[in-house]
């Protein structure tokens, strides 16, 4: 008898569908309380860093150039006190097959799906990851479906997302496009169930293991080019995978003194599930609308336990404004001859400001660039914003920016400022949410230790947060 495919029936089978679609039973990592064995989950991939690198090298992924942004560094020094203004380097991840670092995640996930005998892969993503999975599926001979949140209720699509759909189709994938709303997960599960394909989730351990090579390469390339580890690595932060994987790779390379900074575009006040506000955004990723909820509650993704747990690694979390990123994108094109992003340039805008805090011989690496295309470029994004009634003008982004109302372009580069978010607040939020989710009021020693690891703090911090 055919299974009932209504919303409640499909969602009710969620755990079984997931287990089938990941080839992994998350129960074996659970303690039954707040804690779970994160490192065992990561080890469950069965791939070492060397093996991951080998998989990637077969599919045109990895070993991307580390480029010194000399002119942007020189520009930053004009606004720093004498002797300050670090050297800024960019990891040119646009050079990966499919044009972004997401190819690293996809290469591993698709190779693993193939090894387990799945006929196809599915991913729920409106971003670069869709193109990455589609590209890898094409290379490795699997079928591919990408499920996108793309349109508002008037059928108007975000230009960046429409471009991603085009790119996925160029690689032979089917793209299922939806209007705004979290019930995308229902459609995603339903197709997973019907096709029996692999869930190439952004948040699986295979995906995150794929990013570790990025951190490892950054350390190795810095040692070769400047003879030391970078003082700081800045990661554009949305779902937290970039931060998690890069940090793990740096640690595996022994670069344990490097400070890890997450950077997101400040979209405070815009609801990610709002039909009306969907097209009021002038960027579709790398923003706080994803960055904050995924950092403070990593397990609300499309897998039972996310392998992306950025607060385990983050030393600082800074925000920039949409206008800063648009300006930084023009800097990269005009001063360095690199047309990239804008999506990955959130970290660049932040690094431009952070460089001014560090001495001239310090090294800051931004962990990615990504490709530019029709729709995925500052002109269509700003022109789309203007058509949607967003006010675009030059001013002081930090004083005047209102997400969904305006895009304030910095009136000169001195107005590009990375603003520190309250990291301890996010850590406390994660601790409280974890306990609440598991109905735990009296956490065990193991839970306390786990939460300290989850937040890069100590047991005392966790206890204090919980009023113990």
């Amino acid at each position, binding site marked *: 008898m055919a299974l009932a495919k209504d919303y409640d029936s499909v969602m009710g089978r969620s755990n079984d569908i997931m287990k089938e679609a990941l080839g992994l039973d998350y129960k074996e990592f659970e303690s039954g309380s707040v804690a779970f064995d994160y490192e065992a989950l990561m080890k469950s991939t069965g791939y070492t860093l060397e093996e991951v690198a080998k998989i990637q090298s077969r599919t045109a992924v990895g070993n991307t150039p580390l480029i010194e942004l000399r002119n942007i560094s020189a520009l930053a020094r004009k606004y720093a006190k004498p002797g300050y203004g670090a050297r800024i380097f960019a990891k040119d991840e646009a050079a990966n097959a499919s044009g972004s670092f997401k190819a690293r995640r996809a290469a591993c996930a698709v190779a693993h799906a193939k090894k387990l005998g799945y006929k196809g892969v599915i991913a729920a993503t409106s971003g670069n990851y869709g193109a990455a999975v589609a590209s890898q599926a094409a290379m490795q001979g699997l079928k591919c479906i990408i499920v996108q949140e793309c349109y508002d*209720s008037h059928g108007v699509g975000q230009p960046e997302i429409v471009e991603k759909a085009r790119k996925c189709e160029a690689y032979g994938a089917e793209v*299922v496009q939806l209007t705004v709303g979290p*019930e995308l997960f229902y459609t995603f599960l339903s197709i997973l169930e019907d096709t029996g394909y692999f869930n190439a989730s952004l948040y699986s351990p295979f995906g995150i293991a794929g990013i570790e090579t990025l951190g490892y390469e950054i350390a190795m390339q810095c040692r070769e080019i400047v003879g030391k580890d970078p003082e700081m690595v800045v990661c554009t932060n949305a779902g937290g995978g970039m931060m998690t994987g890069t940090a793990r790779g740096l640690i595996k390379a022994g670069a344990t003194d490097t400070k890890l900074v997450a950077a997101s575009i400040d979209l405070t006040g815009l*609801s990610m599930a709002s039909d009306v506000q969907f097209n009021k955004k002038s960027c579709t990723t790398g923003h706080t609308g994803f960055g904050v909820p995924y950092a403070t509650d990593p397990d609300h993704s499309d897998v039972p336990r996310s392998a992306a747990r950025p607060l385990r690694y983050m030393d600082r979390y800074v925000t920039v404004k949409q206008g800063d990123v648009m300006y930084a994108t023009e800097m990269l094109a005009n*001063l360095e001859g690199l047309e990239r992003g804008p999506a990955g340039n959130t970290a660049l805008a932040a690094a431009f400001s952070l460089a001014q805090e560090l001495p001239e011989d310090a090294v800051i690496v931004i962990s990615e660039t990504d490709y530019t295309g*029709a*729709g995925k470029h500052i002109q269509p994004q*700003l022109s789309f914003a203007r058509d949607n009634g967003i006010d675009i003008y030059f001013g002081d982004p930090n004083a005047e920016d209102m997400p969904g109302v305006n895009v304030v372009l910095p009136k000169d580069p001195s107005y590009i400022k990375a603003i520190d978010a309250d990291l301890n607040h996010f850590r406390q939020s994660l601790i409280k949410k974890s306990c609440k989710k598991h109905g735990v009021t009296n956490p065990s020693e193991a839970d306390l230790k786990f939460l300290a690891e989850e937040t890069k703090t100590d047991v005392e911090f966790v206890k204090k947060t919980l009023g113990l």
Partner: protein
Amino acid sequence: MVKKGEWVRIHAVVLKADERTGKIPEDTKKCDLEMWTKGTLLADAEIGDEVEVETAVGRIEKGTLIEVHPYYTHSYGKFVPEIIEIDKQLRAIMGGDR
């Protein structure tokens, strides 16, 4: 008439507005959850008919036929004068010492 075998785009309502889950903003709750995909038309039909298509991966999907030979219209956008201003400013600041 659209012939069987043509590449088309279809549209379907996945959830009607009143079937949507509780945890979404009020404005979204008022809208249907809609879906679009593309595929090869499996039988002759007219625009607006309920049809079946075979998608790129070989899935059979049902929906309303809305477009034949669908193509992309996204672009590099209209002229945004502020971009020229940024470029001029960057050249002016960096002019002498590049």
